[in-house]
């Protein structure tokens, strides 16, 4: 009974604390603090992102350039991404979708939980205690993915890059949060490569 009461009190205390903190945060974090936080998180996540892409951003398939290009387009469509720009001659396609696509909600939550503590550590020096109120919110964001197809002697290389884009235009001169949480990047690449593989297997029945 006592434990239950304590839990109730704790949750109420926590809620009250969050409310107060949110009010303080909205009233006390300056524009410069926010700019600092965005730049810091972009910088740190960019490093992870580039490492991930270097490791798994490009794969070479023993298919023709045209086959690879088609596979990329179809795979992206399966992941509910919309084509925004494409040039088959160049071997370039650009797709987009509201976040958290190409991940689903559960995957996004999983990725956010994995990277949240690190993100708070990153922005801590900029916003202090208010870092504890930072969250990865998918609302108001779009994910854009650029895919390229390059013909190589050994086959065709497919590569992906991804970035976040704010639906509402950001304030002029204000830095944009464009790098996805690293875990989300990893999970998205896994999904995309899986789709590509699936497409190649389905179309050409290759192992």
């Amino acid at each position, binding site marked *: 009974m006592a434990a239950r009461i304590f839990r109730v009190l704790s949750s109420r205390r926590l809620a009250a604390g969050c409310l107060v903190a949110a009010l303080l945060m909205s009233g006390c974090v300056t524009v410069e603090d926010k700019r600092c936080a965005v730049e810091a998180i972009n910088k740190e996540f*960019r490093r992870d992102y*580039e490492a991930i892409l270097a490791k798994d951003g490009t794969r070479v398939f023993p298919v023709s350039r045209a086959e690879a290009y088609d596979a990329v387009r179809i795979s992206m469509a399966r992941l509910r991404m919309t084509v925004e720009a494409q040039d088959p001659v160049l*071997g*370039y396609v*650009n797709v987009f979708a509201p976040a958290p696509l190409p991940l689903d909600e559960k995957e996004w939550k999983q990725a956010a939980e994995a990277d949240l503590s690190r993100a708070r550590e990153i922005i801590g020096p900029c916003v202090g205690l208010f870092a504890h109120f930072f969250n990865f919110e998918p609302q108001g964001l779009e994910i854009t993915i*650029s895919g*390229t197809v390059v013909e*190589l002697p050994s086959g065709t290389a497919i590569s992906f890059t991804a970035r976040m884009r704010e639906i509402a235009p950001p304030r002029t001169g204000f830095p944009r949060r464009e790098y996805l949480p690293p875990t989300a990047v990893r999970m998205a690449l896994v999904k995309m490569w899986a789709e590509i593989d699936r497409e190649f297997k389905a179309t050409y029945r290759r192992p």
Partner: protein
Amino acid sequence: MSEQAYPDALQPQYRMHWYTIERVLGQGGFGITYLARDTNLDQLVAIKEYLPVEVASRRADATVRSRSEGQRERYRWGLDRFIQEARTLARFDHPNIVRVHSVFEHNGTAYMVMRFEEGDNLAALLERRSTLPERDLLRILLPILDGLELMHNAGFIHRDIKPDNIHIRADGSPVLLDFGSARHALGKAHTLTILVAPGYAPFEQYHSSSENQGPWSDIYGLGATCYRAIAGMPPMDAISRSKGILGSTREVLVPARNVGSGRYSAQLLAAIDHALEFVEKNRPQTVAEWRREILGETSAAGAAPAVADRSAAAASQQVTPPAPSPAAGQSAPSAVPPQPAIAAHQALPRADAPVARRGWSGARTPVAWSIAGAAAAAIAIAVFLWPPIDRDPEEKIRQIQKELERTKELLKERDTDAKTREKLLALLAEQEEAKRRQEDEARKRREEQEKQAQAKLRQEEEARKRREEQDKLAEAKRRQQEEARKRLEEKQRLAEARLRKEEEARKRLEEQQRLAEAARQAEEQRLALTQPPAGVRAPKRPPEAEKLAQGEAALARREYEKAYEILTPLAHGGNSRAQVRLAEMYAGGMGVSKNNNQAYIWYSLAAQGGSTTARTERDRIARLLQPAEVQQADTVVQNWRPR
């Protein structure tokens, strides 16, 4: 005290402020006295409630109201006096005067809060013991005189001194209670029976005016109280005494000297008789004077013999058979000569009677007293030795008739005086009434002015609040307008910036077109120089250049879709100019979705063809891309082959 015994009284446990009623201590014509508890100090107090039953009554809600509209002003006036008296009394702190703590208005009346004195009432004590020995009497009387003197010196008169209003504490010290000027407050219209205590009130208190009242009135009350203590009964009341004095040849009050002879000192008895003088001017005029008489001090020597004379005369009347009436005295001759009776009669009724005044003024000379004493002794011897004279009965009747005539004249004269006094009193009462009305009107005017001032203040306050509210609303509106203005300015600024960019892009495009045109003209001139001789047909413009010109023209005309259709194949074929144009379209979002990646790729491809402009633009676009995107695009560029 049961509810039936005091139907007008407040109920036990009734609460007023921090006082809780416990029981009724007594009720008089002017109010009710309660035993109550001060709950703040947790001590008993006596609370006197102003409730003159003649003009006011209690209602069911415990409030006290005048019995009629006509009595309302009288009631209110008396109430004001009651409060005023309480305030006056509260200034005095004497061990033998009841201590007044507070006064407050409640229930439409007023309440005087007094110290509750435990002990016994002198009336009750006398009821039990009938009389008091001189020592006990003086132990009560002298402290009361001290307190009374203090009050008199402050210009205050008790007007109701009697055994009921003297309280004996447990330690034997007396305290004078119930300073009841409320009876004075009720004015001349009040019924006499509740104005005075019969036997203890002097004759002048039976008049409505207080002009003849003074310390001597209280001295009469104290003398009567002393008389009660030595005689076992109160003295005859002043009205009866006046009838006796005016209607017969003798005073009916038995002097204290006779009543207490042998049991009390002569000086005390003489002082009591002096205090009980019927005419106020014949009494001691101050407490100090009377105290000296009581204590037998020399300064009182002048008063005592006069009283002694009168008392002796009265005593002789008491101890001797009454003077025979004319009818009765016919058969039996009087054993007492008529002279002493006549002399006593002449000394009593009027304050200004020559005999009485002479008695006061002449007594101060010892020689005169010696002569008077010798004369009295001679007269007494002569009377004693004088053979009885058998006077003619008719002569006696004539003499008696003469005396009666004289008495009637005196009575008439007194009536005249009384009427004059009443007229004067009526005049004074009218003046007081007029003054009171003026005061009431002034008070009402003041109250009305205060109400108006308060209403004005309220209005001003409300107006101020309204103004503040309006100011707040105006301020909020101004802030909203300011914010809207800022938003609008920001939008305008952004729009201007966009327009500037578009203008710059257009100018760059025009410059490029101009350069292209210049190049084309230079090419044409070069071709013209190498033109074949006349008759030879000039070669046609290359189709790629023609298409490029069309595409650029369409772009200049902002026909983006057409421009895209023309320029894309050229760009895919490796035409640098077409690649630059296509890059510009992607960078500017002209006809296509803005895409920096593609713009970067096309600028890069054009730069490979040697275009300086493309190189510059490529570097600019690269800053907008992620390094990974740049690397990805560079890979495309490096592996690209014109189609």
